[in-house]
């Protein structure tokens, strides 16, 4: 497996993973800009409109038929959040070159750039009917968030915890903002996005990086670029922006109570290394030998689902649990007790050793999946790091007790969120 990172132009970086061990390949184009309430709706909608029609394949059917002819090419729209940056674009999975007839990979790459850079337009603007149709479907999708109470709770929790901060912006946009868009405003936003965004290209497949660069030369020549592209870094708060803990209670038509606890990682985050955070999360709440799983789920039998996660860009740590409505206080206190116990060093070396080994294995498994490789390298690139999965895995094995204690001691509880049923008092 050969991994190369190359600058292909102003603000354009290619990460190419060349390997012939996969049967499928992945290629993605992520355009990064600041997460901004002024642009988030347009940016989230643009990839959807791009997939409606191109200059040469004018409608959805022609795009789908051509994708099928290319042996099951699957192109999807992207809208992802990296701290306070917004990444949108297209991601494609397709049959690897080894299994395709001669010349098909070139056709696939050309087609992805055709979708990205040569949309169906009239007078240089997106077709109004496509914009209106995708706008309406995107609004329906935003309304449908309420169908999934865990997701609804998650977004509402984020809005409450990060109120007033850029991070609170939902990267899928909002109904009100989306309704204001039209084909003229969206076309302008698209041209700006192409010109002023940082572009991360990712490829994993059997082509060598030299072959790939040769394939990309022509399509990239069509990408307009500003001379200087700057995106502000995520604003990190090391302590909650208020004196008291923020409690947010919400009633909904739910069959299960949903708890979120949100923490600022605190002072530790100023010098934190990603390996320590990864091991801490595995140790505390993201593996089946974690403290949360063993003590809250298995010993106390309080829930089926409980886990922790963290945002490496924002310096925040989250805990989710699905519980009986009347177990809120019990669950919240038990979770906080676990954090305190870890901060007090009440854990064995064996527990930590297990977490390190699991984190190590998880990171090596990244090497076996084109999709995981893409997520890994994009996150690394945007963190300004250059580690490869096996190097990051090795760093996890070096994490010590003091790192775990320091992270747990540094956590500052910011927000307690609870979604309960309409009937529950």
């Amino acid at each position, binding site marked *: 497996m050969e991994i190369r990172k190359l600058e292909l132009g102003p603000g354009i970086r290619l990460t190419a993973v060349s390997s012939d061990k996969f049967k499928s390949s992945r290629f993605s184009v992520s355009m990064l800009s600041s997460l901004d309430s002024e642009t988030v709706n347009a940016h989230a909608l643009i990839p959807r409109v791009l997939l409606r029609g191109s200059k040469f394949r004018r409608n959805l059917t022609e795009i*789908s038929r051509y994708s099928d002819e290319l042996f099951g090419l699957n192109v999807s729209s992207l809208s992802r959040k990296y701290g306070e940056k917004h990444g949108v674009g297209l991601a494609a999975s397709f049959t690897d070159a080894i299994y395709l007839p001669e010349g098909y990979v070139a056709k696939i790459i050309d087609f992805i750039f055709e979708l990205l850079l040569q949309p169906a337009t009239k007078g240089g603007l997106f077709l109004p009917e496509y914009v209106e149709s995708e706008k309406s479907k995107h609004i329906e999708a935003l309304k449908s*968030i309420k169908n999934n109470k865990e997701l609804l709770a998650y977004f509402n929790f984020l809005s409450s915890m990060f109120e007033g901060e850029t991070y609170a912006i939902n990267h899928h946009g909002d109904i009100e903002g989306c309704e204001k868009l039209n084909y003229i405003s969206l076309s302008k936003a698209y041209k700006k996005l192409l010109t002023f965004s940082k572009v991360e290209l990712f490829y994993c497949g059997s082509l060598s990086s030299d072959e790939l660069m040769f394939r990309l030369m022509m399509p990239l020549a069509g990408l307009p670029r500003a001379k200087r592209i700057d995106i502000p870094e995520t604003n990190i708060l090391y302590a909650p922006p208020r004196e008291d803990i923020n409690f947010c209670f919400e009633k909904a*038509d739910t069959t299960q109570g949903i708890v979120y606890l949100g923490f600022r990682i605190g002072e530790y985050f100023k010098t934190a290394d990603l390996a320590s955070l990864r091991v801490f999360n595995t140790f505390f709440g993201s593996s089946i030998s974690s403290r949360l799983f063993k003590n809250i789920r298995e010993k106390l039998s309080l829930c089926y689902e409980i886990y922790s996660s963290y945002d490496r860009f924002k310096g925040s740590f989250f805990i989710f649990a699905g519980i009986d409505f009347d177990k809120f206080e019990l669950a919240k206190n038990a979770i906080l007790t676990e954090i305190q116990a870890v901060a007090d060093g009440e854990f064995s070396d064996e527990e930590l050793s297990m977490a390190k080994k699991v984190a190590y294995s998880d990171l090596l498994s990244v090497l076996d999946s084109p999709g995981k490789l893409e997520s890994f390298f994009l996150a690394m690139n945007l963190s300004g790091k250059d580690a490869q999965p096996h190097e990051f895995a090795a760093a996890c094995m070096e994490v010590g007790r003091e790192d775990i204690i320091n992270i747990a001691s540094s956590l500052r509880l910011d927000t307690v969120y609870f979604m309960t049923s309409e009937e529950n008092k």
Partner: protein
Amino acid sequence: MTELKNIKNTVNENVSSVKLDNGLTIILVKKDGFSSYFAELAVNYGGSVLNYKIDDKNFSIPEGTAHFLEHQLFTNEDGPCEEAFSEMGASPNAFTSPSMTAYHFECSRNFYENLATLINFVSKPYFTAESVEKERGIIAQEISMSQNRPSYRLYRNFLNSLFERHEISSAVLGTVESISEVDAELLYRVHSHFYIPSNMLLTVCGDVEIEKVIETVETAKLSAKGHIPEPVYSVEESIRPFRRETYETADIAATQLLFGCKLKDLSPDETHLFEYASFLGLNAVFGPTSDFFYENYNAGLFRSSFALSLDTGILSAPYLTFSCESQKPEELLANFTKELERVKLKGVKEEDFRRCLNALFGRELHSLDSFYDLSYALSSDFFKGLSYLESFELFNKINVSDINNFLRLIEPEHLCVAQLNPKE
């Protein structure tokens, strides 16, 4: 032990299989150059088995028993097995489907030690009244979590309306009431009946040696041989749905629609052809490349996806489903029926068939990159008496007549429609 045999395939996979003296079959997919290892021990026993017989003796068990057993097996006499895996850097998990239960792990080191742990915990049950009671609480939370998901409720409503008696409509998780009947004694009995080597399959994916896999399995010693239980299903069902329609309301944004129909019983020999024909036929007529999709998407009758699938998990109860979110479900259903009638008369065009065949080939090939998907497909087919990788040969055999024959089996009056509507 039977002779080690290579499983021929057309997709460059290095696959071998062997049957041990105790009856356990092992399939190894040797993946050179991969960093991880994956092993799955699957049991031919799933959530739809509510009645079975051994040597003409009949047994009945409550809904949710297979899934309860899956949860309970993670703890043995020495404590939770999670720690044994974690100590070796492995991540274990398990699932129960209507037709099978499977236990698996992924790791990047200590593969053979982890394999021994997997076999040990699956084959050595340890249940107490206390541990069963504790797990009942966790499973009740899982049931509650599932009911919070509209798609789960819709699916349950659909199956309960489509089938009158067949156990495929039972809930794999069970209900809070049904799992209250499960106790340690029942779990021990079910384990001793179903978890026997000849009723199981071990699938291994990774850069490993089959000889060492066999040695590990033989050292770990699976439970003794026994007679394979025979699931008893209520097969005498009309091809017509039990109820044609079912409606429920929920706190959702737009109507969720799920409709489909039963199909005739399948024999193992015709299953792969049927699966391919359904994918190709349904995609050619209703999929994203079809005129039907284009017209109805443009008319705003569904949002983004119109999912089509054929479930052949239990060969005595195959069924088709179509699902989407729709603001105008009645109009969409009327258009669907009209298109179905048209295509049954006119047939699918050769060019549409060829295009969908390319797409299906790509999709199936991509799934070979996922150890999890590959192991699931191998196990699922093995228990039906099929070889998953041999199915790839069908790409050279299937033709447009197979597709048209399949489509003619779908009768609009056999459709069952489930809707989950937004509250007023």
